[in-house]
């Protein structure tokens, strides 16, 4: 029994993904919507969340959790490797999925629930969790497809004309993006003969000036940029997201674009050598456009959800800016901002759902009066809106501050100006919603007593808001965690060592009855580079330092430095 538990804990990195997937499958077989089915789904989501938080705890102790699937050693088999960065994102993802499911239960009637709804959500979460935990390019593609296919299903679940029409551009863009992704994976395989992150990283460590490498890296950034919603490629996003019901919109907005950003960060730190300056500056220009143009469009919208969608895109620009500066502190800020933004934008979408429940409309002109009757919703909205705009006590401030400070420190003035401008305009667009929905007196609109399920959904949202408030007020542990995540990302040697030189706790080499190990026969055919991974690593360690182009990259930025930075001004 203890052995079983121990071996289960050794395999813990696949468990959040596995549980989500199996829950979804059970949901397909067990179709009749009833209370016990809902209970089953929420308990499963809660277990996933607890497991994910345990993962965060574990990665803080051992930095990287690694599992070679099927006992195939790293460059050959698929490796699952979760570092601090991945575990933090998995933690937020599973938390959001739990809250979205609870909100969904509070607002939809049991008999109106499509039986595919909950399984598809679980499949989407499974895909997202897998993409945060995988250490292999092709597997990353597979996980992208898992959550994309689930998201197509979720978008067209109503199967009315409007949702199909609005899903079509989403489908088209993502199918093209997926094709480009596979092509990219094949280019990588052609260049390096491997798809394993650590192996690519070991082979490319002194190639940061190679034009071919820069080309493939920028190609991948483009592919993931389509998913993330970069500047010229975002038109599909608001159209499709704004036709979803609020809890699904919250999940989509909170998670899907962030997976693209995650993949970009992973590509530019863990996989490819640091110091691809030309790509960073290209991302910088794109981020300026993304931030400013999207937020200007959001000012022209008259529909709460579309305003939020354009805000979402604009804030993807902030994350891109943190990548563009590419200093340790800016990346720390970026990671912190990513977690903050996942929670905040999701809760804003949920709040917009509350508003729609009350006023029966999400067009600004027709809304009003909410502050008088339901002040608490107004309070929730205000907290999250100010947090999104980045005002000091709230969580948005810290990430934005770190990014802005680094932009100024590295003389990227245009970036800094864009950040400030976009923040001010964010505030403006939030004030528009605030004024029209909460303050404005609208004689023609009567807000009756709270609709059914309103109290429960408000409770769910307020817990989420409390979490985001805690992120702002007690920001220390969160910034420390992001800092640790950043250190793990930039310390490539330890990732390579962990994955390629695996000291296993699990039984590894499969031996058949005649005593042939399956791997030993395969190993002989592979190039001799792989035979001494440890040796190669130390060599690369030297090369890497020469190629490091940034001004100050300590391997570990202490918590103190980050906090001193914030206390200067």
């Amino acid at each position, binding site marked *: 029994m203890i052995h079983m538990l121990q071996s289960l804990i050794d395999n813990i990195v696949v468990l959040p993904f596995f549980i989500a997937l199996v829950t979804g499958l059970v949901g397909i*077989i067990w179709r009749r919507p009833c209370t016990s089915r809902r209970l089953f789904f929420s308990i499963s989501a809660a277990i996933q969340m607890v497991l994910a938080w345990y993962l965060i705890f574990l990665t803080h102790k051992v930095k990287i959790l690694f*599992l070679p*699937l*099927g*006992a195939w050693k790293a460059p050959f088999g698929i490796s699952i490797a979760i570092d601090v960065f991945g575990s933090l994102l998995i933690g937020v993802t599973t938390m959001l999925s739990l809250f979205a499911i609870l909100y969904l239960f509070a607002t939809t009637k049991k008999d109106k629930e499509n039986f595919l709804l909950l399984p598809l959500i679980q499949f989407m979460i499974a895909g997202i969790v897998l993409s945060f935990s995988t250490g292999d390019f092709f597997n990353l593609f597979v996980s992208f497809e898992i959550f994309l296919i689930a998201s197509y299903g979720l978008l067209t679940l109503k199967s009315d004309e409007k949702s199909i029409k609005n899903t079509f551009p989403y489908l088209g863009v993502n199918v093209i993006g997926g094709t480009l992704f596979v092509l990219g994976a094949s280019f990588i395989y052609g260049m390096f003969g491997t798809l394993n992150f650590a192996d690519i990283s070991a082979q490319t460590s002194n190639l940061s000036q190679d034009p071919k490498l820069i080309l493939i890296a920028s190609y991948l950034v483009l592919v993931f940029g389509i998913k993330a919603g970069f500047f010229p490629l975002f038109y599909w996003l608001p159209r499709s997201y704004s036709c979803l019901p609020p809890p699904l919109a919250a999940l989509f907005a909170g998670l899907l674009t962030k997976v693209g950003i995650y993949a970009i960060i992973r590509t530019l730190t863990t996989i490819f050598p640091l110091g691809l300056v030309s790509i960073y500056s290209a991302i910088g220009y794109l981020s300026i456009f993304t931030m400013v143009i999207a937020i200007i469009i959001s000012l022209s919208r008259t529909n709460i959800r579309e305003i939020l969608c354009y805000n979402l895109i604009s804030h993807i620009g902030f994350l891109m800016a943190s990548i563009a500066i590419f200093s340790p502190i800016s990346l720390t800020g970026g990671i912190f901002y990513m977690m903050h933004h996942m929670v905040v934008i999701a809760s804003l979408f949920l709040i917009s759902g509350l508003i729609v429940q009350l006023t029966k409309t999400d067009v600004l002109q027709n809304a009003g009066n909410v502050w008088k009757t339901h002040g608490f919703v107004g309070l929730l909205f205000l907290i999250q809106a100010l947090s999104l705009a980045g005002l000091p006590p709230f969580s948005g401030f810290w990430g934005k501050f770190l990014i802005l400070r680094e932009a100024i420190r590295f003389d990227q003035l245009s970036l800094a100006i864009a950040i400030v401008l976009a923040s001010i305009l964010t505030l403006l667009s939030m004030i528009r919603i605030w004024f029209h929905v909460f303050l404005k007196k609208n004689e023609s609109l009567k807000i009756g007593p709270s609709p059914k399920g309103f109290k429960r959904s408000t409770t769910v949202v307020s817990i989420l808001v409390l979490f985001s408030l805690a992120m702002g007020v007690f920001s220390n542990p969160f910034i420390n965690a992001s800092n640790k995540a950043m250190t793990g990302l930039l310390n490539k040697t330890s990732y390579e060592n962990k994955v390629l030189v695996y000291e296993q706790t699990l*039984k590894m080499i499969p031996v058949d*009855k005649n005593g042939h190990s399956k791997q030993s026969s395969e190993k002989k055919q592979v190039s001799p580079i792989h035979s001494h991974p440890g040796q190669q690593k130390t060599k690369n360690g030297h090369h890497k330092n020469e190629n490091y182009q940034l001004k100050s990259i300590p391997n570990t930025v202490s918590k103190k430095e980050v906090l001193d930075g914030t206390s200067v001004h």
Partner: protein
Amino acid sequence: MINTKSHILESVSRLIFLFIIIFSIYLFLKGHNEPGGGFIAGIAASIPLILLAMSLGVPTVQRVLKIDSLSLAATGLILAYGTSFIPTLLGYPFLFQKMIHTHIPILGELHIGTPVLFDLGVFMVVVGVSTKIIFSFLETVNSKEKG
């Protein structure tokens, strides 16, 4: 075309049903080291089902199948994931496979292992999903033609 009953199509699809199923089992068992396996066998096995659905109508085939296609696919995936999960309780990594290699007196070498169960899961998924897709198309076409 689908609604009008074609005797030729019906009798031919009844006739070749068994052959294609047997061929798909052959493909399935051949799979591990040679071309074949769960996916191909699943595709092959869904062809006669689709043919029957075209000749006899979707409801008949669904009645004969007894299990809904989507549930079949889900069960298959659970089977596949179940076989990959069991090693995690026994001290092996997820997705670990064990092969057995024995000599059976008259029949010859037997090389079999847990991947067969995994492949069976894949087989069920492919049959379930492909029949689900085609059946829903057929149903829409039929309902359009009727009214």
